[in-house]
């Protein structure tokens, strides 16, 4: 049985797919983290975000996070899905879903997965403003 679902897609992410993948009779809970596009950065209005990825490597790094989470925490299954392309305010760039017998493991694994993704997975976002655009994290 597959314990993890890792996906990068130009399509709209599907919350139900992530939920259905991790849901199981042996589990007492499911933790979900849903990243959403915020309408401002440092008080500046954002018009849209453009995500790009080094896709084959990003998939490998996401799989490493999933495999590590499955050994580190007492969890049943997890899904890590990330969108690429242009996203509007309120759209969903990332979903992490984790199921476990007891809730603490699911919360901890969920936080571990999103924190590690933000550090290691080769995905980049460009913020578009009314008056220009900026690659996030890239400037001294």
């Amino acid at each position, binding site marked *: 049985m597959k314990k993890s679902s890792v996906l990068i897609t130009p399509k709209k992410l599907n919350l139900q797919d992530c939920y259905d993948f991790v849901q199981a009779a042996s589990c007492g809970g499911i933790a979900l983290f849903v990243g959403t596009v915020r309408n401002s950065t440092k008080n500046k209005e954002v018009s849209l975000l453009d995500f790009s*990825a080094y896709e084959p490597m990003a998939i490998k790094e996401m799989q490493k996070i999933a495999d590590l989470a499955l050994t580190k925490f007492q969890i049943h299954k997890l899904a890590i899905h990330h969108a690429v392309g242009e996203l509007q305010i309120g759209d969903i760039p990332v979903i992490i879903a984790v199921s476990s017998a007891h809730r603490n493991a699911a919360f901890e694994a969920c936080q571990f997965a999103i924190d590690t993704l933000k550090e290691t997975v080769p995905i980049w976002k460009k913020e578009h403003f009314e008056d220009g655009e900026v690659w996030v*994290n890239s400037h001294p």
Partner: protein
Amino acid sequence: MKIQLLFFGIATDLVGENSVFIELKSAATISELKKDLLKKYSKLKNIEDFAIAVNEEYGENDLVLQENDVVAIIPPVSGG
């Protein structure tokens, strides 16, 4: 020896390329490559730092490169 370079994120914009093939002395390390890159593409100095991936895996500075390696310039990531 010949290697392929891939650029992503802000590096693509600074260099103006997605992918190029370059000649490198044989058995060059990642830190030697980084020095070469900063000379060849001085605009890369505008990024605070960048990581290097070799054949889709992060590489440390002392990693020795080989002919036909695919080497990616990884600016600070910002997924999620």
